[in-house]
């Protein structure tokens, strides 16, 4: 069973529904073509979804879905659930279970479905609910037939067609059709049809036959970029009582501006006076924005409260000012109002917020996105503000909203722009260390790790931990060092330049392992790559490296009296399409060794044929990172 689980930001109500057919053989597990059983935990035998559009505020969705489930992992593909709220009425929900030979063994009526609040972990309150089937299979395979009819007043989210909606599920038959009983124009956009067996009957009527399951592979480019889909949008729509126009992003943005934002952005005079006084010492817009961002961060906190207008209308800025909390929409809108008070223009911005990079579709306007940020225009380069964080540096987006197309909501209408791209030089990790070794193999060291950009985002989490947990974090971070003891931690979080500097004094006994009269020392102590990408007999999917980054390491190792180098490598350099790597070991004098290492990963999309080369590149790095120096103890 799937819940409407949403990321930390906003929750928009989605009604996920699927397809229709009827043939006796669909209930029998043994009639499935062999090809479809490979790489599949479940097969969608027949899936038919009819979307009847009767008016801009009246839509009726009929779903019939027959799924044969082979094992417990396949249960999640039942998709026997409906979300609902005040504007969504479930008219019918029914499920029947058939055994392997197609005999009906169980039946569920509407009242037999479980009913729960659709609150996900991070949400404080939500008025949306979910009805779902809770069925414990007795035996696999079994077949489930699920039928539902749902009446919706909101037409902002027309069910989309995703015949394959996940890994390890294949599809025998799937059909999707929109019946337009109104004079509203319906636009559609299809994606990834070419690689699949799809019959296009019209723009709003499609069928698919015998789609094979897709196996999950690491570094995949995101399932939504692989699977076929059809997205529809109504030119006139209703979002919980608010009527809107959507022929393009300009329209849609204009509607959002006029109907969802305007009127919610008033703030009390006291707040206006306060931020005016706060920014009185500067005339520079960006400087003002910085001060106000800090003001907002100090004053508010993030809380997810999903009520009203499908979770799309921001809370009144006055209330945010008074209560000091809101969700992403409310906090963004509030910050926008504060900026407006001091004459700095800014735009409410809709985005897909996630560590995985996902863009708003620039070519097709449809209600989408799961998060809202604020754009402050600044000459050539837009500055984007994450308003849900109390600690985020000004204009910092790496890791959640960087490098993607987003929708700006301006008074003139919607505009698609791209957020900041963090290049390898923007996302650096520079580790320096001064290490002292003893004749018994113990080490003590002063280490400094400086991070910027995406790597700042990864390291910043340690800042607010308690000392006990910081110590644990470093023990995990340097888990290649056994018996690690952390003596001193000093962290400097320079938010102005977005540089994190972690200084750690540490020691570890027996770091260098003894072998007779020798000590074997791995000079790369503080930044070792250990993970080799998984091996695939035959790679099926292209792959993607989402972000570029750069690591630079410089460790000075001081040897004690009576210990001398017996053997060591000099270094090695690797160049590839995926990045570059180089390490060097130099003996500075009798008791000083210098280890340096530079590792750059490029971002990019690559063909599946290159996967083994990528794996070899990483494998080689893992091996070189284990380079050893042999020391002789006299």
């Amino acid at each position: 069973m799937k819940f409407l689980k949403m990321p930390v930001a906003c929750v928009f109500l989605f009604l996920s529904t699927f397809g229709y057919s009827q043939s006796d053989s669909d209930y029998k597990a043994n009639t499935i073509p062999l090809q479809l059983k490979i790489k599949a935990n479940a097969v969608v035998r027949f899936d038919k979804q009819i979307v009847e559009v009767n008016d801009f505020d009246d839509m009726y969705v009929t779903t019939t879905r027959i799924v044969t489930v082979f094992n417990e992992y396949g249960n999640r593909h039942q998709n026997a659930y409906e979300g609902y709220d005040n504007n969504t009425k479930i008219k019918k929900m029914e499920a029947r279970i058939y055994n392997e030979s197609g005999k009906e063994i169980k039946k569920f009526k509407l009242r037999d479905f479980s009913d729960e609040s659709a609150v996900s972990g991070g949400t404080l309150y939500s008025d949306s609910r979910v009805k779902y089937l809770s069925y414990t299979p007795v035996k696999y395979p079994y077949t489930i037939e699920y039928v539902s009819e749902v009446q919706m007043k909101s037409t902002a989210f027309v069910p989309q067609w995703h015949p394959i909606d996940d890994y390890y599920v294949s599809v025998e038959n799937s059909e999707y059709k929109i019946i337009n009983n109104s004079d509203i124009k319906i636009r559609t956009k299809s994606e990834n049809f070419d690689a699949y067996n799809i019959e296009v009957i019209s723009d709003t009527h499609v069928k698919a036959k015998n789609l094979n399951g897709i196996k999950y592979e690491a570094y995949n480019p995101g399932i939504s970029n692989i699977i076929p889909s059809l997205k529809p949008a109504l030119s006139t729509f209703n979002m919980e009582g608010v009527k809107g126009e959507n022929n393009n992003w300009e329209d849609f943005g204009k509607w959002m501006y006029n109907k969802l934002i305007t009127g919610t952005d008033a703030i009390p005079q006291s707040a206006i006076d306060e931020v005016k006084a706060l920014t009185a010492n500067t005339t520079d817009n960006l400087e003002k924005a910085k001060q106000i961002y800090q003001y907002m961060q100090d004053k508010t906190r993030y809380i997810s409260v999903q009520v009203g207008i499908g979770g799309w209308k921001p809370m009144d800025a006055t209330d945010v000012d008074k209560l000091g909390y809101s969700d992403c929409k409310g906090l963004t809108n509030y910050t926008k109002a504060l900026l407006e008070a001091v004459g700095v223009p800014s735009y409410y911005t809709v985005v897909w917020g996630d560590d995985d990079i996902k863009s708003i579709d620039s070519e097709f306007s449809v209600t989408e996105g799961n998060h809202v940020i604020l754009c402050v225009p600044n000459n050539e380069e837009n500055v984007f503000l994450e308003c849900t964080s109390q600690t985020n540096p000004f204009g910092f987006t790496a890791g959640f909203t960087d490098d993607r197309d987003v929708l700006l909501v301006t008074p003139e209408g919607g505009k698609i722009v791209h957020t900041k791209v963090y290049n390898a030089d923007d996302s650096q990790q520079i580790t320096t260390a001064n290490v002292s070794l003893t004749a018994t193999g113990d080490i003590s060291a002063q280490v400094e790790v400086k991070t910027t950009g995406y790597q700042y985002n990864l390291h910043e989490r340690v800042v607010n931990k308690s000392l006990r947990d910081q110590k644990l974090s470093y023990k995990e971070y340097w888990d290649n060092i056994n018996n690690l003891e952390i003596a001193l931690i000093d962290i400097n979080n320079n938010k102005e330049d977005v540089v994190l500097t972690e200084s750690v004094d540490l020691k570890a006994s027996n770091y260098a392992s003894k072998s007779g009269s020798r000590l074997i020392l791995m000079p790369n102590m503080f930044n070792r790559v250990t993970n080799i990408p998984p091996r695939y007999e035959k790679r099926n999917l292209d792959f993607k490296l989402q972000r570029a980054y750069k690591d630079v390491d410089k460790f000075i190792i001081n040897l004690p009296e009576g210990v001398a180098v017996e053997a060591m490598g000099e270094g090695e350099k690797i160049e590839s399409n995926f990045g570059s790597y180089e390490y060097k070991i130099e003996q500075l004098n009798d008791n000083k060794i210098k280890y340096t290492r530079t590792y750059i990963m490029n971002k990019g999309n690559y063909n599946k044929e290159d996967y083994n080369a990528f794996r070899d590149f990483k494998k080689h790095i893992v091996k070189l990172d284990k380079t050893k120096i042999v020391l002789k103890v006299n």
Partner: protein
Amino acid sequence: MNTKPHNLSKMKKLLTFTALLALVTFAKAQDFKFGKVSKEELQEKVHPMDSSANAAVLSKKERIYFVLTDYDGFMQHREVTERIKIYNKEGYDWATKKIFLYQGSSGAKKEKVSNLKGYTYNLEGTKVAKTKLKKDGMFEEDYNDFTQINTITMPNIQDGCVIEYTYKIVSPFLVIDDVALQYNVPINKINVKITTPQFYRYNKFNNTKASYFPRVKESREKRTLPTRRGSFLGTSATENTSAYNNTNNSYFEDILTIVDTNVPALKEEAYAGSMGNYISKMSFELSAILNEFGAPQKSFSSTWEQVSKSIYKRPSFGDQIKRTNFFDDDIASIAAGIDNPFQKAALLSNYVKTKVKWNGYYGVSAYKGTKDAYKEGEGNVADINLLLIAMLKSQGVNANPVLVSTKNNGVPLYPTRKGFNYVICMVENQGQYVLIDATDKFSSLNVLPERVLNWKGRLIKDDGSSNWVSLMPSQQSQESTSLNIKLEEDLSISGKVRQMITSNLALRYKKRYMGLSKDDQVKSIEEDKGAIEVANLKLENKDNNALAISYDYELTDAIDDIGGKLYFSPLLFMAEKESPFKLDERKYPIDFSIPFKDKYKVNIMLPQGYKVETLPQSEVMEFKGGEIKFSFVVKENGNFIQLSSEFDLKSAYIDSADYSVFKEFYGKIVEKQAEQIVLSKI
């Protein structure tokens, strides 16, 4: 989540008084006056005793007392007032509070919240600014049929602020929820008072596994009932009737008071199991309802013997193992011709596993009943295991239920029906016995799922008598690995791994691997083993729940050639790379769940033209007089190097007092396994 057993809702009915006033008052002696926060509290930047605290409870006050009402009899009141300091943004979660309310099974009786008030205090300049919690910060939500959640979120939260809220839960139920005396942040001042009228006798327990114990004071006070109508009746329509004496209108109250300062925070420790087992708390067991003369009118569970008996008497328990007619025909042939009761048990438990699937719910009571579960092919733990017991009994096997408290249910503080939440099956024959849980498809005789391996079990016989049985596996699980290593000229390694895994370790491996496709099994084996390629992987079920795993491997990154000498560690990818025990000190034990033994036999064939220059030294180590043993013995034998190593853990628990010694011991094992073999050219 806070749910209560349904059957106790009825108890409230047992006493119905008429015409009385609220009786209970509580002293208002407190240092913390609600609505008044000092500047010092707001100015504090870090907690004076625990600088790691993101928030601290400055004051926690809780009052539980019973109020007599005209129509509903005694109602339980629970007043909670907390003042919390929030130091930084990591502590902001403390500004949101969820109150769980039990809604009863029928919905007719439910808990309600009242008198909810709250303030946030901030320092603005030198002034204390106060923001009130309003309706827009309060949310009510029907979470499911049994639970309503009332959530409050405080306004205007800033670093350094102090929040304060107070509320009262009025409950028609007699069950007193556990009173938490510790949080994961420090509590500066705690003041708890629980007052129970003489008519309800509660046994009181504190958690002996906690590392903090509060000071508890018990006292008794006399109360007078203002008898407006001259008399009151201790009667109810359905329960015992006893006339009250007109003149005897006084009664006493039992008072339990906990007043303490500086309660340390409960801090998470890895490998300790559920931290809920270690929180300091008070639990209350309703042991009897008394009449006005002090004689028990109705008694409740007070010994494990009685608890077991009362569970046995339930139709959803005892009756289930007596009913056999619905499956008689189906099973007649299964164990036909077999005399050994343990063999019969094996066959019938397999039959139950194929017929009835576990729906994921625990319970000591059959939910559907064995008959319906059998018919529908689905049931909870009790449905399934009681069905198995009924089947075995019908075949003349001496099978009986064993009540269990699962790991996440913890170890009960006192004899209570809530103390058991699971039931398994025991078969006895000629002084020997086996334990069976038919809810898990990979479990087998005496190999129980880990959720069951907690505390001890209570065996109930047909006559309702009961006694304890140990649930800990009588056999130590074993993982025996043979690793063959052949060094190639190009410095790669090839070889073969053969493993034999038994008992609970086998169960663990089966759960991990058996659901996966061949591809994913290989990937899972290859994970974290470096530049390895695995081929010819075989997983085979053996007798007695053992699992045999074998595969060929090739490894390209294990050997270093430095200055013409070869360096590698003999356990290769089998070596433990790091010690998981990273905390400097622990307050709570380490729980390995099961005792086990890891054995390795490594056979290394030397490459042509090389000889051994150095070998790791052989070593044997013991922890705590042999509770854990580790040996590592390396030998050169002609063209071969042989290593045999063993890690022998006899007890699954490591006491926190022994932690630092154990940590060092374990660190040495990791070090030993990393030691290198050096080969040089001949």
